[in-house]
């Protein structure tokens, strides 16, 4: 009993400390959000810094070089891709003016009533419903997404945190392992080593997968001739981070735009075909190559995770909730597997 009591006290104290830490994190969601995004980005960029180091650069120089590269890419993005993007946003805004939108929606309503009258589709009042939802969407966009102050703070703070995580990440890890008691020191290092490989591969895989799917979607929608192809492709790529719902959301958006654009379903068929091919390519070629180990989650878990992410951290929380849940799942799974392996005998 004497042997067991101190360990029980320790476990209780550790549990209380862990609970207090988690509550503390919930009290500062904005900072947690910034650190999580910065950590994800530094994980994705880490192999690049290692590659530059292997070419003889110091870690600091390698990190600075990567940041300069990113700035250059952003400048190119600003000069080359931003004008068409703004044009699409502008044309989207003009496309949403009451007269044009009304005409497009009534055209869509006619098509739906003509084709689906046999299942009782008669008076839809889509224009009225759309107007109401747009008013709410506008309010919601301004309160959730377009918070300029927090956007500027994030744009300054995230690169700042990423820089130091990349430059001094090893020292942080050493400091963390350094405070471990001797008994758990080697195991904690072993666990960090295994997690680093698994989580790093998972996150980089997800990022590359999203980028490839986004590019394929932009290309396919441009070839089909859909308006706002760049915006929809971008959305499809980001939404691809969410399993099950992401690809459907991207396709649904493209189908709606194609129907509004042409007033018929002909172009929508091409969109469905293109998204099916992209999904097949993603499942058969891209994912097996770039996503080292998939984190299987059933659709209900994904839905709950997205809802919780949205409730706690807004739109960004919804987008990043599945990769973060995947990250937590990998951490827990690998911790259990490796603890069993470590203490196998």
């Amino acid at each position, binding site marked *: 009993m004497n042997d067991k009591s101190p360990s029980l006290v320790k476990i209780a104290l550790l549990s209380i400390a862990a609970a207090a830490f988690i509550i503390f994190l919930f009290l500062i969601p904005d900072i947690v959000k910034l650190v999580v995004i910065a950590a994800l980005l530094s994980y994705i960029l880490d192999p690049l810094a290692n590659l530059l*180091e292997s070419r003889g650069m110091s870690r600091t120089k390698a990190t600075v070089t990567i940041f300069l590269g990113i700035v250059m890419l952003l400048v190119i993005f600003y000069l080359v891709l931003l004008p068409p993007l703004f044009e699409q946003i502008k044309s989207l805004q003009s496309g949403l003016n009451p007269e044009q939108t009304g005409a497009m929606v009534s055209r869509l309503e006619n098509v739906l009533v003509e084709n689906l009258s046999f299942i009782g589709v008669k008076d839809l009042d889509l224009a009225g419903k759309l107007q109401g939802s747009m008013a709410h969407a506008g309010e919601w966009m301004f309160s959730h997404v377009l918070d300029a102050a927090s956007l500027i703070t994030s744009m300054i703070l995230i690169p700042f945190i990423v820089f130091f995580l990349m430059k001094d990440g090893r020292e942080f890890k*050493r400091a963390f392992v350094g405070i471990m008691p*001797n008994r758990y020191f080697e195991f904690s290092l072993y666990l*960090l*080593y295994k997690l680093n490989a698994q989580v790093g591969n998972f996150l980089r895989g997800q990022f590359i997968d999203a980028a490839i799917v986004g590019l394929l979607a932009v290309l396919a929608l441009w070839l089909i001739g859909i308006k706002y192809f760049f915006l929809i492709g971008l959305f499809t790529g980001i939404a691809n981070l969410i399993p099950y719902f992401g690809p459907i959301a991207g396709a649904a958006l493209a189908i709606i735009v194609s129907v509004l654009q042409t007033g018929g379903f002909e172009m929508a068929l091409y969109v469905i075909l293109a998204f099916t091919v992209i999904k097949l390519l993603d499942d058969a070629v891209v994912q097996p190559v770039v996503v080292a180990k998939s984190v299987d989650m059933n659709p209900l878990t994904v839905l709950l995770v997205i809802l919780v992410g949205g409730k706690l951290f807004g739109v960004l929380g919804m987008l990043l909730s599945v990769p973060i849940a995947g990250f937590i799942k990998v951490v827990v799974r690998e911790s259990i597997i490796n603890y069993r392996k*470590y203490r*196998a005998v």
Partner: protein
Amino acid sequence: MSKVWENIFKLRRKQTDEIDNILVKIPIFQDLNSRELNIIKRILHKREYKAKENIFNEGDVGLGMYIIVRGCVRIICDQENQLLAELCEGDFFGELALLDEAPRSATAVAKTPCVLLCFFKPELLDLLERNPKLGSRILFKLAWTIGERLKSTNEQLRALSGPDRQNESKS
């Protein structure tokens, strides 16, 4: 005030010299220049153990080697409770774990209060990625060290089996 700083720097220099002197005696790091040695020192973990404290247990997954800076370590076989070796300042153990993740074949216990430097596989792999030239030199020396140990084990086995063979041939 300046004396305080002088003393701090002296203490730090003394500790650095102590570690340098130990490291250059370890075959794996023997041929490294001072710049390379500094890179290695930055990736080593320094740990302090009390007397009778376990460093690792038989059956744990091995992650790397330990270098004794101060104190003595006993290597014990748990099942037979047999003392396999007693290692002191400048000795190292567990280097095979740098290559293989097999469970530790014995338990290491600090005989006296110890200061150890730990060189682990994740850091070696990281070094190979970031500084392939230095990493491959260390790997080469590691292979050489393990080869030397294998040769000496073979010789010990031959010496042990020598009298038995003579007895067998006589009978």
